[in-house]
């Protein structure tokens, strides 16, 4: 359906208001706001939020930045909590306890800590059970809320407070987990990886698809953190762009198991373009550490190729 994104942004009221306490230059608030903009204005939403930066900065008693109904319980169980609310909706709707003509959508937000790690079981359970909900991971690649500790989403070699780049061990030694593929393994009707880039078009469209596809859907959104990544706050958008142009963060969607890479850079930039502006990778640029950049590039290349292969394979099968 044709639409004008500028009009959407101008005319649809923001459902995540100003006044929250997220850091300047943080990727999460614009992502959250744009995802909620994808809701139809007439629809109500119940939002669940895992403990993390977004939660502790947006709902400090007695103030809230959320205009929809919102629930936070704990770190690892946003998906399970929301699955209970969704079950209540199904039961109450069936019994005529809720207005027939009104739709409520269910959206969970969790950081990578609350999603890739401590909340993975809860997420997996909720997705497998088939609740009609969208789970959004805003992935900033570490436990930022507690002060930049490594998570399984932290990229290889990144310097964090629990994977410090030391004299013997040069940062995090393990490659990062591929969460979107784990979600694809749940055979969900819609899984996508996205980012706030190019006027948020990719993010908006994928959000709308995720929210309005029946059943459990999943969005993985790279969401940079100026404190944890070490970039100037005004550089959020350039960092996002570099993540995509280097194919560090490929944009794709998987609809009923069929992969579609939604953006293929005409000229794939070397990954060091993405790494260089970030302090967490600074040690990789010291003389003698060239191997780290090479290794990193290899990983990006092989994952990108794997994605292209999956796209070809699943489309052929169709």
């Amino acid at each position, binding site marked *: 359906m044709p639409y004008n994104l500028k009009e959407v942004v101008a005319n649809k009221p923001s459902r995540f208001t100003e006044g929250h306490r997220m850091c300047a230059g943080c990727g999460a608030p614009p992502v959250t706001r744009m995802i909620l903009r994808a809701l139809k204005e007439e629809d109500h939403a119940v939002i669940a939020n895992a403990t993390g930066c977004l939660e502790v900065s947006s709902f400090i008693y007695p103030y809230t930045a959320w205009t929809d109904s919102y629930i936070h319980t704990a770190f690892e*169980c946003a998906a399970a909590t929301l699955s209970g609310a969704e079950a209540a909706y199904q039961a109450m709707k069936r019994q005529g306890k809720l207005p027939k003509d009104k739709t409520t959508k269910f959206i969970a937000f969790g950081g990578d800590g609350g999603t890739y790690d401590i909340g993975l079981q809860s997420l997996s359970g909720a997705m497998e059970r088939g609740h009609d909900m969208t789970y959004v991971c805003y992935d900033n690649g570490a436990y930022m809320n507690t002060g930049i500790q490594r998570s399984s989403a932290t990229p290889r070699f990144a310097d964090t407070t629990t994977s410090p780049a030391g004299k013997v061990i040069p940062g995090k030694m393990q490659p990062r987990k591929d969460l979107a593929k784990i979600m694809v393994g749940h055979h969900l009707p819609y899984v996508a990886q996205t980012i706030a880039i190019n006027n948020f078009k990719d993010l908006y469209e994928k959000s709308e698809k995720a929210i309005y596809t029946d059943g459990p859907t999943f969005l993985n959104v790279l969401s940079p953190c100026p404190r944890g990544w070490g970039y100037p706050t005004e550089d959020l958008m350039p960092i996002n762009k570099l993540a995509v142009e280097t194919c560090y963060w490929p944009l794709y969607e998987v609809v009923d198991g069929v992969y579609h890479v939604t953006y293929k850079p005409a000229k794939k930039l070397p990954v060091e373009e993405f790494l260089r502006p970030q302090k967490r990778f600074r040690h990789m640029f010291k003389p003698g550490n060239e191997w780290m950049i090479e290794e990193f590039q290899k990983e990006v290349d092989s994952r990108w190729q794997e994605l292209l292969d999956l796209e070809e394979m699943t489309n052929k099968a169709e």
Partner: protein
Amino acid sequence: MSIRERLSGNEAAATAMKQINPDVVAAFPITPSTEIPQYFSTFVANGSVDTEFVAVESEHSAMSACIGAESAGSRAMTATSANGLSLMWEMIYIASSLRLPIVLSLVNRAVSGPLNIHCDHSDAMGVRDSGWIMLFSENNQEAYDNTLMAHRIAEDENVRLPLMICQDGFITSHSIENIELESDDEVKKFVGEYHPEHYLLDDQNPIAVGPLDLQAFLFEHKAQQGEAMKAAKQVILEVSKDFEAWTGRHYGLFEEYRLADAEMAIVCMNSTAGTTKAVVDRLRENGIKAGLLKIRVYRPFPAEEVANALSHLKAIAVLDRADSLNAIGGALFEDVTSSLYVENKHVPMVNYVYGIGGRDTTEKDIESVYTDLTEIVKTGKVENPYRYLGLRREEK
């Protein structure tokens, strides 16, 4: 008119849940409470309830889903035991802090480790200060009746706290006994409909639940929880009175069994009270003035009432089916002793930790406690106030 049946404790709990017909049940199997979600999912599969059954992947998610469901504006119930409750622990506190009247059927079992599937109260004792109302049940009838009363108590506007109904694993949960059931219509009438004031699914009045609550407010919010727990005592008595008017079955904060003219008494909870009653009757035949106080309402703890009911005695034994491993004594013992102390009543008291991991507690064991109490009555002395009952070792 009550219906006479024969049911196990688990069947009794599941039957009550069916008659209550909650909107959501989220549960995960764990022995010995597994049968409750099993029976319940059969009710769902056969269309005999309107419930959405959420077969979660853990007990942590069971309680999380119940919190989500109850916040959304529905009635949510679950069942668990032992390690299941341990895994829920984080969410147990969150449920009560959000003032959600979730109802949980706890089939008491020893918490690991080592692994043991049989009855003791270490699971319940682990959450005794979590802000949940805790009702204990001597048998299947009490498990059923307590469940029927649960929502009226938990949802009361002066309470709004979650509630758990405890029954002894295997001893009660798997033993089939006679029971009086009430009709579905009558239960529906007694329990009533749930109309929360604020809920997530009210699209006209969206709410936010579960804030970051810092130094400026958390203290006040916790104190409100404390006030609600105090208020629950009166509400429990009122609901129990209505229940008695309906069914003829009487419930108070605790049961006094041949206590009024007793010289010595045992204080205990759940199925051991049944064994104790048999021993009391026999001792009475021999002219020994033995009595029993069986706690029904463990949280809120009826301190003043317990102290007054026990103050005339010459010796008291408190039986704890969980060891607090604190070198002082079991949790119930501490509650009873401090109740008496605060009321300025002094009675010699002794604590027995018993029945750990499903160790049988026989009439002979209970009788030995009364024998010890007889000695204490005679001498007025308590040599060792923190003892084991039924432990297989030489007394030092």
